[in-house]
């Protein structure tokens, strides 16, 4: 039971060491700050998809709930970073509670469609209320507003450590869920929800809690992204941002704690290198995705777990 803790804390320690020892170039440091925040989003998505078995196509809604709650409150209301984070957290909980309550009246394909529709509604609202959100163009959060505990969050090193801190908390929280009896019930629902119900679990309530946890972590990712990178735009609420976390999770391994990190790193650098080689880089990305789904159906870490290390949470 201890070795899983060792591996996950080890991964966090490694990410700290890379920075402390100055191994990152500026370029990779910036990339990794972004990857870590996006991984938080992937972790949130994984709670619902990987652990509970509910496939949402509308998670951009939760990401942008946090993103806009933080961004707009800083931009329009002069909130400081701490206040904006608290607001974003509360707003994310509320949004996921309401959306979860409504969407969970459906299952399977209908659930996918309903979540997609809700997220499209949110996207259109952001465009429609362009007077406040500045629509597609988005808003830039000034460097002077991006200060937390007198740390300048736009400084690349501080930004990296901030992203890593948020990531570390979410990763440990995910690990705790995966090892808890609560997480075991989520997995039971994923594996056989009929049976879980017949063992006396209130399956609907567990699903709702999973949506709330998943949506809130996604919202935290959104808020962190806006604050650390200083930009809040409607593209984050559009369909591709609902698909990305699904891809990271599938690539890394659905229902594994470190899967979203592996998936996000893999995809980020794949796109990065492919676009150096050709303009049609999405073809290379597509081929790589195809290969992974053909030869590692469970994702990279998922395949390792299936073949060699069944104890990986």
């Amino acid at each position, binding site marked *: 039971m201890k070795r899983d803790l060792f591996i996950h804390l080890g991964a966090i320690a490694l990410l700290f060491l890379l920075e402390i020892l100055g191994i990152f170039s500026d370029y990779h440091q910036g990339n990794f700050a972004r990857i870590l925040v996006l991984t938080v989003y992937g972790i949130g998505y994984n709670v619902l998809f990987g652990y509970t078995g509910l496939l949402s196509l509308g998670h951009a809604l939760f990401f942008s709930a946090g993103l806009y709650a933080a961004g707009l409150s800083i931009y329009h209301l002069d909130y400081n970073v701490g206040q904006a984070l608290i607001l974003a957290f509360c707003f994310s909980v509320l949004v996921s509670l309401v959306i979860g309550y409504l969407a969970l009246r459906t299952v399977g394909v209908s659930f996918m469609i309903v979540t997609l529709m809700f997220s499209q509604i949110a996207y259109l609202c952001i465009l429609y209320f362009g007077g406040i959100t500045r629509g597609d163009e988005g808003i830039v959060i000034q460097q002077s507003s991006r200060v937390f505990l007198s740390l300048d969050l736009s400084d690349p090193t501080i930004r990296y450590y901030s992203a890593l801190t948020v990531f570390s908390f979410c990763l440990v929280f995910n690990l705790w869920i995966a090892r808890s*009896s609560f997480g*075991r*019930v989520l*997995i*039971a629902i994923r*594996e*056989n929800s*009929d*049976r*879980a*119900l*017949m*063992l*006396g*679990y*209130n*399956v609907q309530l567990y699903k709702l809690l999973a949506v709330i946890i998943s949506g809130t972590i996604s919202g935290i990712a959104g808020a962190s992204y806006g604050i650390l990178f200083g930009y809040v735009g409607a593209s984050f609420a559009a369909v591709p941002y609902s698909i990305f976390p699904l891809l990271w999770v599938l690539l890394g391994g659905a229902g594994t704690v470190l899967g979203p990190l592996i998936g996000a790193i893999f995809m980020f650098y794949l796109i990065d290198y492919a676009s150096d080689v050709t303009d049609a880089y999405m073809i290379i990305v597509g081929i790589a995705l195809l290969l992974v789904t053909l030869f590692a159906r469970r994702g990279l870490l998922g395949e390792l777990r299936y073949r060699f290390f069944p104890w990986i949470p």
Partner: protein
Amino acid sequence: MDTIEKNTLLYTENLSKNFQGIQAVKNVNFKINKNEIRALIGPNGAGKTTFVSLLCGRIKSTNGAVFFDGKDISNFPVYKRISGGIGYTFQITSIFLNLTVYENVALAIKEETGKTNSIDKEISNVLDKVGLLDRVNQRSGDLSYGHQRLLELAMGMAQRPKLLILDEPTQGLSDPEIDNFKFLIKSLSSSTTVLLIEHNMDVVMSIADKISVLHFGEIIAEGDKKTIQNDPIVQKAYLGD
């Protein structure tokens, strides 16, 4: 109802279920006492699975009421009936195939049982009884069919229900496993009431205190083994064929 005494664990009033046109269960008035082992028999399609599904809430009744442990549970959702003390094992094996035997049983144990240590003990205890202890860390999907049936039974026992409903549990078991099953159910009856749907008449005759016969959704006979064996209606409808 005329004879609802305080040792009645569950009873139904005019319980009925229609599936578009088919009346699978018709006005059933059924009563089971605490610590009884009751067998429910009847030909295929008689409505046995549907009837017990109405008891645990897996299927909503069209009409009638279910009383359990002194309460009208007719409008209780499934999880509330189960956590209130009704355990149910599926006719078609339904376990968590990708999880280990250990995890399957752990899921069946109620939270209040407490710490990991005592849960581990409970799991070992239950698995030992059904003879699966040496497979505790195996993926349950890798078990043989018979062993999966036993795991299903172990999960039912681990729930420690007041009423354990078993839907054709011996299907697919070997003879020694059936003997062990009979022994297990008998030993359970000091703490649990058992409602057993069973086709194997040898099992029924050797462990049931009382037998109910369901035919076309109606209970056509009820009583101890002798009564049922000698009942002309039953012989015509079921035993004779």
